[in-house]
């Protein structure tokens, strides 16, 4: 298989989405098994492409013979493939959780939605065309909305409705921005837009910047735009939580990067500046810092575990966006480490907290009481996950947080003040995670009955934990992928060159 078959990463899940409907008539297990198989294939193929890209640099896969900037093309960069592999891993673990459920009339539909989710995520991360990105953005949102509403109770419907509203406003903003670009520059190819963005008038540039902000900040769970998070997380089923908290966030961060750095940013002196006349970095940094503070305080006084995890997810996303806003090599490395930490440990946290709370009437922090005695495996998983989340030394979260501080302090001016504020706010995070962990150690009798161990959950959780431990304990490996990806993020020139002269590479 060459890199030109990269379209398989999108096509295979789309095909399976249709097939699973037909095959689901015969046996409801078939779609579920197909799901795991497809995701394993996608994961394998994306890591294969990753090795290919790491030796050959950015690759462009041309669809149906139209050379860029015309037609649709897939751009394989190290950064996008790395995040894509991560997303596949998360979806794989989520679908293992999904497979373990009993089949009912919904199984086939949910499997289709998960296929759709996979296809949309692949498309978002691979495409080199901004309108194409919009289309996948919509599909992604549709998949998310339907997945959130699976539970069909009040919170779930409210959450999915909120998500629907906010993400459709967001995609309207995105469409406005894209329309503006197409009207002025006459192209939809991301590389070409990035090359020619400076031709736009300052007012148009600022307008597009605002449009993009409105488009993506809801997806990245940033404070004034993220009012969907608590209800959606609380109302959604467990594997959907894993997808929302980990896979969707990673995809959203990728879109954020492409929109603001590949298109509007330009690299100068080992740092990105923005091609608009106001200080865009400060705006993003301020919004993300406020988002961190608000979500930490919100989580502090929440009682529902899922809500706490939702707020914590928002605060972590704020930290990553803050790292993006510093926008140099070091901060991108920090951001990548934080992304790995967020997606892996958040998935572990959702998974294990669900198992710990199983059997309790009210799913709040009280239902954690005595978890260690009741459910030692998942309690251990939860403890590992939250220790990594709060940055226990020598875990991924620690490396991420420390290097974030390092890059922010060495960047001039306000970043060092903001990072101090963010650090103080993240003391709150420590508090509520340690409160949850404390509840696990409490040995008082409570009325939660002991439930049977679910091996699928354990397998899925330990898969994620293993990846996390490998990343934390294999310095050479992690260093290589993080520095290659950060280098790839900084290298806008190569991206544009490779895409626009795709024929030279054949």
């Amino acid at each position: 298989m060459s890199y030109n078959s990269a379209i398989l990463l999108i096509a295979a899940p789309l095909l399976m989405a249709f097939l699973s409907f037909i095959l689901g008539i015969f046996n409801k297990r078939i779609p579920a098994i197909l799901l795991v198989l497809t995701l394993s294939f996608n994961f394998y193929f994306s890591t294969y492409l990753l090795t290919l890209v790491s030796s050959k640099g950015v690759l462009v896969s041309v669809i149906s013979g139209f050379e860029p900037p015309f037609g649709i093309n897939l751009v394989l960069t190290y950064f996008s493939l790395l995040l894509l592999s991560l997303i596949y891993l998360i979806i794989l673990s989520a679908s293992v959780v999904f497979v373990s459920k009993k089949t009912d009339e919904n199984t086939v539909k949910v499997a289709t939605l998960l296929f759709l989710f996979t296809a949309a995520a692949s498309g978002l991360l691979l495409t080199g065309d901004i309108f194409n990105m919009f289309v996948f953005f919509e599909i992604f949102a549709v998949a998310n909305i339907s997945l959130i509403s699976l539970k069909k109770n009040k919170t779930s419907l409210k959450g999915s409705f909120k998500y629907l509203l906010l993400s459709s406003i967001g995609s309207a903003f995105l469409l406005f921005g894209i329309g503006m670009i197409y009207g002025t520059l006459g192209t939809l190819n991301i590389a070409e837009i990035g090359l020619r963005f400076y031709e736009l008038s300052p007012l148009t540039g600022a307008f597009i910047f605002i449009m993009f902000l409105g488009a993506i900040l809801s997806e990245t769970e940033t404070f004034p735009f993220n009012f969907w998070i608590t209800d959606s997380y609380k109302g959604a089923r467990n594997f959907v939580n894993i997808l929302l908290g980990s896979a969707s966030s990673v995809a959203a961060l990728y879109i954020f990067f492409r929109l603001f750095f590949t298109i509007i940013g330009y690299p100068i002196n080992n740092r990105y500046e923005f091609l608009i006349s106001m200080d865009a970095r400060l705006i993003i940094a301020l919004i993300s810092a406020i988002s961190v503070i608000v979500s930490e305080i919100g989580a502090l006084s929440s009682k529902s575990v899922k809500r706490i995890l939702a707020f914590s997810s928002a605060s972590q996303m704020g930290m990553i966006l803050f790292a993006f806003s510093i926008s140099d090599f070091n901060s991108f490395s920090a951001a990548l480490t934080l992304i790995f930490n967020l997606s892996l440990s958040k998935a572990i946290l959702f998974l294990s907290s669900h198992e710990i709370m199983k059997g309790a009437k009210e799913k709040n922090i009280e239902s954690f009481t005595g978890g260690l005695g009741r459910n030692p495996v998942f309690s251990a998983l939860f403890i590992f996950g939250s220790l990594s989340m709060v940055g226990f030394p020598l875990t991924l979260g620690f490396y991420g947080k420390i290097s974030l501080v390092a890059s922010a302090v060495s960047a001039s001016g306000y970043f060092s003040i903001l990072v101090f504020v963010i650090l103080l706010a993240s003391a709150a995070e420590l508090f509520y995670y340690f409160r949850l962990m404390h509840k696990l150690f409490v040995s008082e009798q409570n009325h939660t009955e002991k439930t049977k161990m679910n091996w699928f959950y354990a397998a899925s959780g330990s898969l994620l934990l293993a990846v996390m431990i490998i990343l934390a304990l294999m310095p050479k490996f992690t260093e290589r992928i993080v520095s290659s990806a950060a280098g790839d993020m900084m290298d806008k020139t190569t991206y544009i060159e490779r895409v626009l002269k795709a024929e030279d590479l054949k």
Partner: protein
Amino acid sequence: MILYSFLFALLTALLSLFIRREYNYIRWILYSAVLASLTFLIYTMNGLWGYSESFKLLSVGSVDFSLNFKVTPLSWLFSFFTTGLSLSISLFSIVKNRHEESERSIGFFWLILSVCNIAIFLSADLLTLFIFWEAMTFVSFFVISPGWTKSFKAVNYYFILSILGAFAMLVGIFFLYSKSATFNIESNIAQLFVLYELNSPQAIFITLMFVLGFFTKSALMPFHIWPAEAHSEAPDDFSSYLSGIMIKYGLYGSILFLVPLFVFISKFSQTQPMSNHIPLFSHILAWVGAITSVVATFLAVKSNDMKRLAAWSTVGNIGYAATSIFILSSMGVAGGIFHIINHAIFKTAIFLSLAAVKYRTHEREMHRLGGLAYKMPVTFLTFLLGIIAAAGIPPLNGYASKWMIYQSLLSGRFPFLATMIFLSSTGAFMYLFRALHSVFLGQLPSKFDDVKEVPFLMQIPMYILMLLMVIIGIFPGTVLLPVNSILKSMNMEEIKVTYTTMYSMLSSVDAPIVFLVFAGSFAFAFILYLIGKPRRHVELLDNYTAGQDPKEFGLTREMYHFALKFYEPFEHMFDKYPRTNTKEFYDSFERKINETGSFIKKFYSSSPRSAVYIFTLSIVLIIIYGWLVW
């Protein structure tokens, strides 16, 4: 070697989790064995100054994470004494934890904590220090509150303050790192000194960040409230570790980083404000120490809970040591380090004896105890020697270090600081002897008639500690000669000391002679006791009632035990003065945060319509902001 021994200890901790509860003594014996081997390992490293180990970890962006360990006289002294003391505490814990609830997690985390403890002292650079500092903070959470609701409430003060301090320190470290591009301690001190000359406010900010990190950990003002909460609610044997060892990290950090910096400034700086020949900053910190010791003393006098009292006493002693360290003279730094070591020993002894009392009586409120001296003689003797040392009475070790602190304060011309220290030292008599009286003397409540001395294994560490107190009291040179090599390694003038005699600018003390004088007077009293008239043993109560039958008045032994509100008249003396309640301040802060949180939470669960409104409004705000800036 260092790293492998750490990994070995961690592996033991992990394996010990699989030991069943019935055989839990195996777990604790295993821990003692590990601690003994660690103590031996550190002992063999004596004199290997400059021996270093490095272990590379991840490097993210420009930061190379690595673990660097180095043996210096300072790190050796601290790590040796603390590990030795943890060994003696762990001997105590073998029996103590036999029927303890959640002893499994206590032991597991405690062993990890012991590893972090050694690693903090042996770390060669600021990043390694921070890594183990953070690990220590996180792990100690689970030992102080191993799933107990009451200790969870108490641990929060400790945890949040420590975390905020650690984050402040982190910011300080990276501000320096962005200038010096290294984590090496000496180069960073030099860098900070240069920064003091170039950009004084920034340098003061960075120093302040370090001070916050160290002072929160060592519970100096205004962070002095956590020991009373955390020490009293922690597991009883762990309280001695917490109070004897863990609270010293902040002072260790100060000696490691701040003292060389201030010495540098006082020697070479032309621009920095000085007062009394030391930098003003350092002088202020010395005052913070003195004020802490006075405040803690008054709070100790007020407390009725014996563990709380001992915790306040710890804060007071930390205050003396901090004052002594920050006046920057050789005598002061040596006295500070000596007092830290001595305090570790006698406070461990005090807390272990209190743990022994609680092990037998399950009681912490002092007015419910009393008269245990005859029932638990070894515990009583340990406590007695402990408080004699704590009060600074010769011939025990506390006297030697307090003498040095006074000498350094007087010879450095700090009369007001010396007065404050004298004041709180006198106050120490008040609360320490009150504790002795309320717990061990006076009337034995009838419910404790069957109380026995603790098992022999628990007595062993007490014997060891008593011996240490006496030996260091008679031969202060055993600690002070290593302290001299610390001073030498810090490029400070050495103090004049032999094994037995301490010299200062003003006078000198020959400790064995002091000991002989005291021993002689005791012997004299004992001889008088032997040759005196034959005497008859009566019950304590008979003595109290002067021969009257107490039953006639309906009096019981408990009613004759005057321990509740012991110093009420003394407390009334301060009624007129305004008081601030630091704990109340922190609590109100927490309440405000929680209120804000509820408000935010409510907003998040509001209707979809308002979500859309806020979304639109925020976009409009961003546009307006962009307009204004542009």
